């Protein structure tokens, strides 16, 4: 199916398109289109965030929306993340459907109070009386020496908080479908994007559609190793898998698409088949989501595992600025390949 495909390059896509006659968009265009359709179809939806109306349009993802819907619905805000998250939570409680946009995920610690203590717990504390239909878009930024305060990926923190849902789309199809699903979901959703795949292209239907939460996707089938890859790592894993195929190694790549709910079943069934589990994440290792995913497998049946679990992550350090250190910091398809080969050597 076209929407399960990860296209590693424009070429890749062109080959496919020629055969299938598909509409394609980039990830960032898909996000923009999702928001446009949401704003068009639902008067409760509005967007707020620092710079959502500026000429850059949040790396292009909100471009043109203020022109079309006006500053009353696409709202630039003060640099006051916690207060404004509270404002969004209040508006959501009153029945609006705010989408709060953060250019970098690093700014979320500013508003953990409103996310963790308010948005996540509100529906429960009120005994099911008041839902908080709030979507918080945040972008994992990295590279160009941005250093420790402008390169973080903190999805693991939110996975530990009951009451939040978490989406981490990797393809343009999922970017659009999951964002629409997030806004329609009616719960607080952490919607986590990755700057490095903003220009990746893929099949995106024109209509407003949703991708269900809690359903992962097999991006590539394989027999010997399961790689659970998140966000941008899906591309690296797909690349590694293709290259390893040429070397006769069969790798299954799973993209869970949402972390909460997490598609355990898909992951467990794959590990049952392959006997080997690698988790490729876009964040630090210790206390990260890799541990959770591995644990879900060994809670079911440790006997499935024929080899040690491997986690592929950023170095467990703050992010350095120097380009040589940055290069060492971030894993790539090569890291995945080497890890898999090492696993199979055992």
């Amino acid at each position, binding site marked *: 199916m076209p929407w399960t495909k990860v296209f590693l390059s424009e070429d890749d896509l062109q080959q496919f398109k020629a055969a299938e006659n598909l509409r394609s968009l980039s990830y960032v265009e898909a996000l923009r289109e999702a928001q446009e359709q949401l704003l068009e179809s639902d008067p409760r939806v*509005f967007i707020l965030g620092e710079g959502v109306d500026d000429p850059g349009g949040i790396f292009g993802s909100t471009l043109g929306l203020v022109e079309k819907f006006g500053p*009353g*619905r696409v709202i630039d*805000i*003060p640099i*006051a993340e*916690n*207060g*404004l*998250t*509270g*404002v*969004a*939570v*209040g*508006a*959501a*409680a*009153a*029945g*609006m459907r705010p989408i709060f946009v953060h250019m970098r995920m690093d700014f979320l610690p500013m508003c953990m*109070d*409103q996310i963790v*203590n*308010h948005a996540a717990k*509100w*529906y*429960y*504390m*009120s*005994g*099911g*009386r*008041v*839902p908080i*239909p709030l979507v918080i878009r945040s972008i994992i930024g990295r590279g160009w020496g941005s250093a420790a305060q402008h390169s973080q990926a903190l999805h693991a923190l939110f996975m530990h908080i*009951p*009451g939040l*849902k978490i989406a981490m789309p990797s393809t343009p199809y999922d970017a659009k479908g999951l964002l629409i699903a997030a806004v*329609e*979901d*009616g*719960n607080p959703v952490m919607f986590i994007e990755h700057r490095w795949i903003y220009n990746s292209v893929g099949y995106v239907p024109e209509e407003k559609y949703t991708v269900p939460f809690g359903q992962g996707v097999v991006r590539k089938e394989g027999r010997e190793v399961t790689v659970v890859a998140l966000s941008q790592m899906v591309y690296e894993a797909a690349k590694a898998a293709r290259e390893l195929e040429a070397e006769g190694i069969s790798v299954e790549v799973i993209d869970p698409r949402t972390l909460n709910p997490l598609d355990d079943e898909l992951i467990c069934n794959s590990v049952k088949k392959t006997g080997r589990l690698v988790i490729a994440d876009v964040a630090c290792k210790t206390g990260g989501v890799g541990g959770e995913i591995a644990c879900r497998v060994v809670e079911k049946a440790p006997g499935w595992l024929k080899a040690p679990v491997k986690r592929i992550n950023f170095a467990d350090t703050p992010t350095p600025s120097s380009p040589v250190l940055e290069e060492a910091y971030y894993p790539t398809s090569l890291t995945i390949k080497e890890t898999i080969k090492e696993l199979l050597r055992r």
Partner: protein
Amino acid sequence: MSDCTNNATGIPASTLKELLRVMVLVRRFEEKIIEVYGLQDMKSPVHLCIGEEAIAAGVCAHLRPDDYLFTNHRNHGHCLAKGVDPKVLYAEFYGRVDGCCRGKGGSMHPAWPELGILGTSAIVGGGIALAVGTALASKMRQDGRVSVTFFGDGGSDEGTFHEGLNFAALKELPVIFVCENNFYATNSPLAARQPHPDIYKRAAGYGIPATALDGNDVVAIYLAAQDAVARARQGGGPTLLECKTYRWKGHVGPDCDHEKGCRPMEDLTAWMEKCPVELLKEDLLGTGVIEPWWYNKVVQETDQELDAALKFAKESPFPPKEEIYLHVYCEKGS
């Protein structure tokens, strides 16, 4: 006794009587908690507002049922003044299914959306931004609603106070910030937390009109809130009302913390002389708006209502324990 306006303020006698009735309700509601709390079956941390009833009564008198209200950990008075049935509050404090949150929230988190109480945060300063958010929603929808947020002097220590006031002023939102300055946050005196005792002075920096009020003078609060609510409803933007008052009981629970050395006993004595309920009662008796029998009847009827409410609460069943997993996520969707 008549229903004409009886004083220089032009407030109808019926309104004054209603203010007194609400204050009596709040006072008796909490006194009954004190009575039952020793039994240790009301397992929820209660933050009593005895001594501070005038603020809730004076402000809420101007609110429509659909106006939004965000309160804090010390919320009983605000909820009652907004009109919430004492039954669902008591039941909530007892952790029962008939509680306003089905036993999920306890005393710190009442919700009653039917009256614009969209849930309560017990994080200090937490409700300030939420009220700005409902006010934003109201402005967007032009629904004519006003949002009110009650918070303590402690709440004004928090950064969200600044962020909330700034955004409300910027967008001229229909929100009223009511600071209940009782000079303490738990046992921490205001003087250990802010350089001066006048919180209302912060508002000028945002261009927000603000008044410092005697928080025990319900008439003063009623009049100031009248202006503020009218201005907000007409699109004139936010107001800050600082109501200086005093908490008679300990920060949490039914005891008098002065006995534990938390605060000077003289202060309590002095403030008790300024009891907001007594002040209005004496005033209305003195001006002939009410007579003793009227007051006694109000107390008696209130007690009857509250006793029935307590009975209802204690007879209400506990939620089945499977409900622990209910309401983590809303299933309704779009």
